[in-house]
């Protein structure tokens, strides 16, 4: 019966050895317990014992070679010994002592971290660093905690929250400059961390504009819509239908958001921008959306912001309105993965079916996260917006 004679492990921390000398040659008989070879280890020369009465068939490893524990050194012919059940050799890497039958139970990833003794009442908590940053930005921790609705606030959170509340509650001038650089750092970090790509698309806003004028003419002031709302609804529907623009990028991967909450950028007096969300903008009709949008802006102006609203946005729309330039290249609002920007609607020449005419044109731009989407899906997204705006009655 053929036996593979392997280099045995001789010590708790012995991983390799160098064969220095064979004490037997092919054809020699070897008795149980007799040394068959000598190896050099960290501790010096050690005889290697054979555990079977056998004859040497072939020597596999030449003297002078360094080998790992478990390597086959020689082939032996067992002298008629009863065939021993071949037991699976344990590879050096395998956890030593892995028996044939019993598998060592998998080591759990980690003992569960001790649950905090009593789950703190849903009071949100400011980390010490966040508390100090809040102080620097002239923000009362209580206001921040009330805004954070139960989450743990870190430095970045304070900086984002400060971007809103400090402005809305008309803080003293120096805090406003502190506000300026807080938003600056948030933007800089987003620019640095998120690999942006940009796409622009000019569309004929004529259909939407005439539809809106006719729609508003029939209604009192209180029920009229504004152009920005049509855009928000179009973006919401397009985001719902195109993969990779609606959701968050966190812990190294994209989390697709199930609902579509469109962050609508509202310029704050004296600098700064917030983008509270129109919740489920893809599913609500224009009338309801307008009512919510109007209420949202009113509360921003009055400083009564709900933190959940501006933390909830899954995509953002930002516009320069009537007095801006034609094209706007926005920065993504982390952890979101896309933002749509629009410039001013301007009367410009437009070629259609070979003839040129003057049309109210709008340049819609997209800034998106290249880790999640790319130019091809980005342009499909912008074309969807254009098609939706071309049939405003269906919004």
């Amino acid at each position, binding site marked *: 019966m053929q036996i593979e004679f392997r280099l045995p492990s001789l010590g708790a921390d012995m991983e390799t050895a160098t064969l220095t000398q064979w004490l037997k040659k092919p054809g020699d008989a070897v008795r149980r317990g007799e040394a068959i070879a000598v190896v050099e280890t960290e501790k010096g020369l050690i005889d290697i014992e054979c555990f079977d009465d056998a004859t040497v068939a072939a020597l596999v490893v030449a003297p002078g070679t360094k080998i790992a524990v478990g390597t086959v050194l020689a082939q032996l012919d067992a002298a008629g010994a009863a065939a021993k059940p071949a037991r699976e050799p344990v590879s050096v890497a395998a956890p030593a002592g892995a028996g044939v039958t019993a598998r060592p139970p998998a080591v759990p990833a980690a003992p569960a971290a001790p649950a905090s003794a009593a789950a703190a009442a849903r009071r949100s908590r400011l980390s010490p660093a966040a508390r100090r940053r809040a102080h620097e930005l002239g923000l009362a921790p209580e206001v921040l905690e009330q805004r954070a609705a139960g989450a743990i606030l870190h430095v970045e959170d304070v900086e984002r929250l400060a971007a809103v509340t400090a402005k809305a509650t008309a803080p003293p001038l120096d805090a406003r400059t502190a506000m300026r650089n807080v938003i600056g750092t948030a933007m800089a970090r987003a620019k640095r961390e998120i690999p942006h790509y940009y796409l622009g698309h000019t569309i004929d806003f004529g259909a939407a504009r005439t539809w809106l*004028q006719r729609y508003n003419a029939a209604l009192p002031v*209180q029920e009229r819509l*504004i152009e*920005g709302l049509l855009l928000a609804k179009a973006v919401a529907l397009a985001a719902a239908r195109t993969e990779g623009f609606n959701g968050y990028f966190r812990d190294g991967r994209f989390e697709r958001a199930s609902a579509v909450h469109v962050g609508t950028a509202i*310029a704050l007096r004296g600098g700064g921008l917030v983008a509270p969300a129109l919740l489920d903008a893809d599913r609500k009709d224009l009338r309801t959306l307008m009512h919510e949008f*109007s209420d949202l802006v*009113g509360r921003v*102006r009055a400083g009564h912001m709900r933190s959940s609203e501006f933390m909830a946005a899954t995509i953002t729309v930002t516009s320069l309105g*009537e*007095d801006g330039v034609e094209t706007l290249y926005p920065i993504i609002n982390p952890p979101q993965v896309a933002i749509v920007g629009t410039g001013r609607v301007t009367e410009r020449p437009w070629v259609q079916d070979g003839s040129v005419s003057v049309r109210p044109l709008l340049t819609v731009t997209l800034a998106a996260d290249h880790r999640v989407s790319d130019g091809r899906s980005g342009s499909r997204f912008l074309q969807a917006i254009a098609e939706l705006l071309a049939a405003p009655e269906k919004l």
Partner: protein
Amino acid sequence: MEARDIRTRVLALLTAIAPDIEPATIDPARELRDQFDFDSMDRLHFAMAISEAFRIDIPEADYTQLGALQSACAYVQHRLGASARP
């Protein structure tokens, strides 16, 4: 209604829909949009407030006349004059 009354009421309406504007700093002749980032929603809110307060309907085309404080007051006076009430 006296011009002075109209002005105080219109100013009150403006600060109601834009509490973050300091009334004393308003230049009546200049466009609100240029002074305070007065966007389309603000203008709509301003028009709604005036329409309710003075019970007058304001067609979209007239919005531009509400662009500055002074022109807004003049517009109201004009509209009230036209339908003067005791």
